[in-house]
């Protein structure tokens, strides 16, 4: 998998990307958004895979958000870019572990953070989960709930 270019230089002037720069907007299989036509759907050439957002698109949107002075929104898009290729089951597993009392101690969450970082290259999200571990410990959130 090719790593997305993190040095996004898109700005509010490029937005909406699909209208102003359709050539930048690629589908997960490398086509452009203009290939996703009704005719192509009917011919069976379009799958849900072609309707997914890509890490690059999220990084582009992050750059747009940052240029609109919305740095926190940009950081969310950057975390999201890292999750695009994380399978749904693992995503829901990590979400579940982050909920209060699900992890009885920090081990499982730290392990999840390691998988995010090592398997999916999701270093920002891994750091985010590790921050949660630290706070959960301080606040006694690894407690019994059910």
């Amino acid at each position, binding site marked *: 998998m090719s790593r997305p270019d993190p040095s996004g230089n898109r700005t509010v002037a490029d937005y909406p990307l699909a*209208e102003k720069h359709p050539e930048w907007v690629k589908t997960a299989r490398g086509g452009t958004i203009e290939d996703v036509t009704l005719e192509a759907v009917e011919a069976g050439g379009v799958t849900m895979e072609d309707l997914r*957002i890509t890490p690059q698109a999220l990084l582009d949107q992050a750059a747009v958000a940052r240029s609109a002075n919305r740095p926190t929104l940009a950081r969310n898009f950057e975390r999201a870019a*890292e999750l695009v290729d994380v399978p749904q089951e693992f995503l829901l597993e990590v979400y579940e572990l982050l*909920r209060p*009392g699900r992890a009885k101690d920090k081990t499982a969450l730290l392990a999840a953070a390691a998988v995010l970082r090592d398997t999916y290259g999701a270093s920002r999200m891994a750091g985010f989960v590790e*921050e949660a571990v630290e*706070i959960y410990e301080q606040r006694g959130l690894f407690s019994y709930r059910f």
Partner: protein
Amino acid sequence: MNERDAPSGVLGANRWRRFDDWDERPLRLDNFAVEDPPNGFSAFHGLRDPKPGVVVEGGRIVSLDGTAAADFDMIDHFVANHHLDPELAETAMAIPSQEIARMLVDVSVPRTELARLAHGLTPAKLAEVVAQLSSIELAFAFSKMRTRKTPGNQGHVTNAKDDPLQLAADAAIAVAFGFDEIETTMRVARNAWSNALACAVGASVGRWGTLFQCAGEEAEELQIGLAGFTSYAETVSVYGTEKAFVDGDDTPWSKAFLAAAYASRGIKMRCTSGGGSELLMGFHEAKSLLYLEARCLCLQRAMGVQGTQNGGIDGAPVASSMPGGVRELMAENLLAVWLDLECATGNDARHSESEIRVGAKILPFLIAGSDLTCSGMGTILKYDNSFNPSSFNGEEMEDFLVLQRDFEADGGLTSIDETAALELRRRAIDALSAVYAELDLGEPSPAMKQSVAIASGSNDTDSYLPRDASLISERIKERGITVIDVIKALARRGFREEAQNLLNLVRLRVSGDYLQTAAVVRSGHVISAVNDPNDYGGPGSGYRLNDARRRELAAIRDVLTRDEVLRTEAAFARDEAARIAYKVLGPAARAKDAPTDIVIGVSPAFGLKLYRTLAGHPLSAVLRALCEGIRAKGCTVRVVRMRHTADTSFLGLSAAGLSGSGIGIGIQAKGTAVIHQIGRLPHNNLELFSNAPVISLEHYRAMGGNAAVYAMGGMPEPVVVPTKGMALGARFHAQVALLYAIETALTQEDAQPEEVEVTYPEAAN
């Protein structure tokens, strides 16, 4: 009055009965609570609200609103780490709150500057600033600070049976009304897939671009999103105390993770929060609604979500039970947009049984404009709303449309035509049926489809029941049906336009343009706070209605026009021609030595251009009743047409001046009538029937009788026409103005009264 004469219940009663009347008003069903800060009942001034403050050391926040980092709860931690800009915080916090409050309402301070400043403000500071604003200042500041320029709206599409046919039909209607987003939920949780597919198909009818969500269990909601049926989510709730958050089964980190997860799937997302939720959950920490909501909103910005739905939401009723509670809801909406979040401004969970309170609550948002005026207006009837009744529902839809027209304020909706509405419903039902047939999900009968097409609500339908929906839902889920399958099915069965519309919507997620702040789709284009930023800077700037939109808002149903009024009158003319004939005898003269002579002065258009009163009586019948009443008491009557005036008082006074008795009756074509007497001042009449719409023929007969009694020097009991307190002006004044203009157009200065012979051809037969 002695004891025996008193009606029962009067003697010994010791309550002013007006209180009985008040007890019966819907308002009295509302709970009102006393301000009680120790127990969390305070909108603005909690017992334990902290003083604003921040300490930054080495680029880190070491103290936040009086709490040292070592004592931070998880919300403080998250706000300190992800919301506050340490480089800005101390400078921003040093500005006095009143100064910032003034900046919020100062048209010369741009919203971008205030939005930037908010990056350095703590929850307590934000709350302290907005608490200084009055309700009108809050609304004004909201109008200036909201993120996207063009206002919009969101609607609920649900029904009590989870009937997919009705969902499809109602979704198409919601789209036609112009909702930017529609939201469904289920009576039975497992029907989520059926609801989602039905709404997605219905919302593809007519035009494309209405975003859609299916509110349900988090994991399933995400799955449905992955299958392409939905395009946004907003059930990600956050809370302002740690205990409430944990009780809500989440943490800021779990919610922020979910926020990133939604974005990673190309699905728009906003959070939900709102004053009163912590109180309802029992973990308020004796803090005010506003302060706790300020924490929620800082959290949301910190998480990096693009927007929020707040303003009480499910807490709106309890917030509204407190003094200043509704003002607090306005303050929290302002905080949201100041923090640069898209704001779906509540006005959903109905906060009152009083229609007056509901109408008053919506007004500031309607005139200020809002990204989504209601975060769920019920597009369906109240009993069909599976979220619970909203402030405005299917029943009150036209009230909302009229409010838009009254204030020339854009609440995002547009009237729909009756014929077009039914066609859209049928099209949506047929489209869904086609998808069902193609994907082997069911075969609704023509009777089912017809019952849904014409139904106002699910009580009227003979269609799918919740169990049927469950079976459909399970089949969709088990077979892994996706939006691609639905698009193909639509196209294959001839619903190409709908197929294209649905594809256009789901294609949005590839670029992620609609993930930016306050994004909606208008006329096939994504608009958001990025490319349609609110640039309000005083009169002439910001959102303004253009001519086309103004005409749309004006175009409500059943609007009177002059032509229409004249057409209706013309239709009546034919009938009247058979009933009465007016023959001009020549100039009217004053009767001499005729003490029982009474003159009825009729208005210029009476029976010539206008033919019935506002109460609907033919003028022939009215004239006959007056004459009969006069004659029955032994007087004689002449009819005189006045052409110099159309005013009731002057008609009456002129008639009195011509009569032998000195008594005259003046009557306008719309039915307003007066008994007058020679020598009196114009407006000091003997009797007046001013409310033409409620006057009966019996009243006119009695008026004639009284005129005769006056003529003979008597003092009759005046005829009092009872009213039931109807808003007659609202019901009739537009028509009155059009009719009266016809009368006045026929007046001629110095035109002499003409005596008229009146005959009744029908009576002669």
